[in-house]
């Protein structure tokens, strides 16, 4: 039954490079994700909840993403308060910058770790077998990583306010808004690129190189809004930064949700 196949002879150099027909030049279409998966929104959200719950249970037993990463973030703050001129007139700006550097590195470390765990034992392959649209798996991972990062921030911010001697007072609402929106965009892009990074030769080590250039506007807006909050500025005076964060978040989450099914497709 086997049809004989003629392979191109590569041992001798042809006098002229053969003219390829269009089919050969184009090659096969790359495989693409299949059609809609049954299950609907309700089943999808349930699956997202289960994925997040699985990550939380894992965390309750290992304390990696909040415990160890939180310690790392705290050490960045402490090191920065020795390394930078704190207590001077620019203290609010320095405190805001330090806080966001700590959040950036800590969240990248934590997200890289949780995504690596996912692929180590073939867990993601098993998850992909679930009869739900794959976007929901991403939402589950995102929810868990968001919770971890917010938990780390809740420890980080009071320590920062103490160490850098910045009163927050009337800027509290702005501070919370900047932290919330900034964290959403950062963790969103982190989760998106972690799926990619974990399948590269360098593994999670590539994650910062992918996230940090794209996240430049997010860092600028977050640091500016946080710095303003630490000098007691209100939300109203900093609407433009918050609007920019909302725009960035919307862009990242939209691209992530649309692209995720393709990224995990084998």
């Amino acid at each position, binding site marked *: 039954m086997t049809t004989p196949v003629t392979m191109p002879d590569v041992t001798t150099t042809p006098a002229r490079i053969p003219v390829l027909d269009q089919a050969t030049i184009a090659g096969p279409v790359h495989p693409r994700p299949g059609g809609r998966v049954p299950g609907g929104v309700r089943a999808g959200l349930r699956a997202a909840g289960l994925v997040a719950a699985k990550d939380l249970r894992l965390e309750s037993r290992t304390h990696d993403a909040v415990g160890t990463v939180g310690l790392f973030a705290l050490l960045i703050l402490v090191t920065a308060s020795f390394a930078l001129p704190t207590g001077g007139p620019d203290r609010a700006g320095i405190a805001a910058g330090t806080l966001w550097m700590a959040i950036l590195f800590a969240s990248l470390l934590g997200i890289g770790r949780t995504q690596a765990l996912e692929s180590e034992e073939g867990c993601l392959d098993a998850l992909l077998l679930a009869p739900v649209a794959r976007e929901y798996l991403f939402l589950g991972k995102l929810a868990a990583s968001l919770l971890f990062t917010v938990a780390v921030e809740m420890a980080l911010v009071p320590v920062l306010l103490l160490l850098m001697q910045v009163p927050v007072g009337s800027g509290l609402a702005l501070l919370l808004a900047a932290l919330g929106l900034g964290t959403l965009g950062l963790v969103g892009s982190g989760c998106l690129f972690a799926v990619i990074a974990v399948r590269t030769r360098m593994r999670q080590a590539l994650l910062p190189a992918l996230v940090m*250039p794209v996240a430049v506007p997010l860092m600028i807006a977050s640091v500016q809004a946080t710095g303003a909050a630490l000098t007691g500025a209100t939300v109203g005076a900093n609407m433009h930064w918050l609007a920019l964060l909302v725009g960035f978040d919307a862009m990242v989450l939209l691209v992530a949700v649309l692209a995720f099914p393709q990224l995990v497709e084998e």
Partner: protein
Amino acid sequence: MAGTETLAAKRFAPAGLLRWRRPLGLAAAAGMAALAVTALLLVAPDAVQGPPQRIFYIHVPSAWVGFLALAVVFVASVRYLVTGDPRHDDLASASAGLGVLFTTGVLLTGPLWARPVWGAYWVWDPRLTSFFVLWLVYLSYLALRRQVTDPVRRARYSAVLGVLGFLDVPIVYMSVNWWRGMHPEQVVITADGPRMPAAMLATLLLGLAAFTLFYLYLLAIRLGLARARRLAWATDATAADMEGTR
């Protein structure tokens, strides 16, 4: 959904560039030579800025081609994600390398002009910073491509970064604009027409044309290269499949 359907029937317009490679190369060489003579010898130097102003004639065309290249990456990436046609990935990868090349040119020629005119090589001005960030994004695009060996994964991953990186450009620009605000205003496209002498404008247009031709010439070469690489990989993979060794 498997990779069995062939693309033979679908037209891929950029492939036409390959046929025009040689004329494009000759036209680009002629344009560059004409630009060098005009910009360095024929057109009068700026009354205030003096000779450094001549950098303008390569700086602005480089910036234009840099943006053009990155817009091509964006469009090709979107089309790849929608169709799964690997030829769009060839185009995106071919154009991304050129985008980095020309944006690097912008970042090198800018400071050479800025030092005598502004008194500093670099300032954190919105347009400079945006270009710098753009350059970083596409460096990470190239880094990502080098890090993924499987061609299907490489195409998908880099397409996502290509899309996100381009959508990020206006957000970067706004953020930096509100953060710091020194680059000369636009002088060509304004409400009351170009604000520069006709000879300068003509030289600039010559520069834009020469650089665009140069880009298209390089793009044709890189497109052919990307295609050859992909086909070589596919042939290897097929051979391995047939021997049952993969």
